[in-house]
């Protein structure tokens, strides 16, 4: 749990620093935010490791296919990364870039989910054929 408190301290310090230098050195402030986000992101991934192990166990218990697991994990990862990146862009004052990043995230997830949606559609087709 030490990492958690350290992360809180880092985030609060960088927020105060960002406020202090943001007026004069905006580029540095954005860089600071990005660095803090990356550090906290790494710590979050460390915390998520046991959760991911649990998910792997559940996957094994449920005999979940690897491709389904990968699609979901990738979608979750892309959603989180694109969201944080777009937030950083908003902080930097680039709203259009933020929107483009969100669009990119949505498109990538849509691209990843095509096989899943196809599988649902083929199931529906099979059902309609039975009916």
């Amino acid at each position, binding site marked *: 749990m030490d990492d958690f408190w350290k992360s809180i301290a880092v985030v609060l310090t960088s927020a105060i620093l960002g406020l202090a230098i943001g007026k004069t050195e905006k580029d540095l402030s954005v860089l600071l935010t990005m660095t803090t986000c990356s550090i906290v992101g790494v710590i979050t991934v460390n915390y*998520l490791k046991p*959760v991911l192990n*649990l*998910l792997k166990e*559940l*996957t094994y*218990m*449920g*005999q*979940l296919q690897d491709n*389904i*697991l990968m*699609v*979901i*994990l990738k*979608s*979750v990862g*892309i*959603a*989180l990364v*694109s*969201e944080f990146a*777009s937030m950083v862009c908003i902080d930097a004052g680039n709203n259009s870039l933020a929107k483009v990043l*969100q669009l990119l*995230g*949505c498109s990538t*997830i*849509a691209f*990843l*989910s095509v096989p*899943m*949606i196809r*599988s*649902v559609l083929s*199931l*529906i087709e*099979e*059902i309609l054929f*039975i*009916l």
Partner: protein
Amino acid sequence: MIKLICIFLMMCSCVTPVSALEIEAPNVPQSGRHIMPEEIDSFGDGLVELLNNALNTFSPDLVEAFEVAMQIITVSMMLALLQTIPSRVKHMADITGTAVITSMLLRSTKSMISLATQTIQELSNYGKLLCPVMTTALAAQGGISASTSLYIGTSTFNAFIGSLIADVLVPMVYLFLALSAANSAVGEDILKKLGVLIKNAISWSLKTLLIVFTTYMSITGVVSGTTDKATLKATKVVISSAVPVVGGILSDASESILVGAELMKNAAGIYGILATLAVFVDPFLKIGVRYILLKITSTICGLVTTKSITGLIEDFTTAFGLLLAMTGSVCLLLLISTVCFLKGVS
């Protein structure tokens, strides 16, 4: 002499083969044969053996249902990681999750719907074979008008409920699931309302049909049973008073014949009930265990994931519930009719 030989030959030509009335229930269909009791000493023992056999054979289904539940919980937990994100990206990932969960559940539901449809068909076909046997048995016992009216009621309702489920209610279940999946992905309130309407229509039609059938059977049983009882009594009185000297003996003998017919009818009826249950119990357990596990899964998922995905899982649970209701209705219809036949003219 020639005349006597001619008369003898003419009498011989009039001889037709006759035998005692055999009343046997039709053999249990293939799907229920593996759990049907070997010997049926009494209804209670037979039922216990049947349930034991059914419980012994359904562990693979329990494992399969457990696996599906685990898969759904896994995907829901992964999607729970997105709960902090407020933007459209999360919505897109939710749609992917919905597609994955729909695909998993639809696969399981499709096989269960096929199983339920097949069971309903088998029960309906078995009913078509059992009813004439029970009708003959009841008629042999003296319940001529009761057997006719019960047969007409049972066969009509049996055919109607079979067609209704296969042609109308099962497609409605699929429509309900499609609306539910679309609602979970898009979040439109109107889709949810349409789904609820379809669900209510299915349960309402099943309930109404069973109420109408039960009422018909009760009224028919009472009215025609009383008529037959009165006819039997009158016939006995006529025999004992009209035939001189041996009238009383004949009347008593007819009583023992009727008791024999009743015994045969009861044996056939008990076998028929157990055979109906043998066909019904296995699919009921398979669908039932999925229903219960999905209920538990939706409760667990409700703690970690979004309302839309929890709603989707609940809707699939409802679909399993509707399947149970459909299969149960057909089984209940057959059981009620067999019991009405068993009740006979008493």
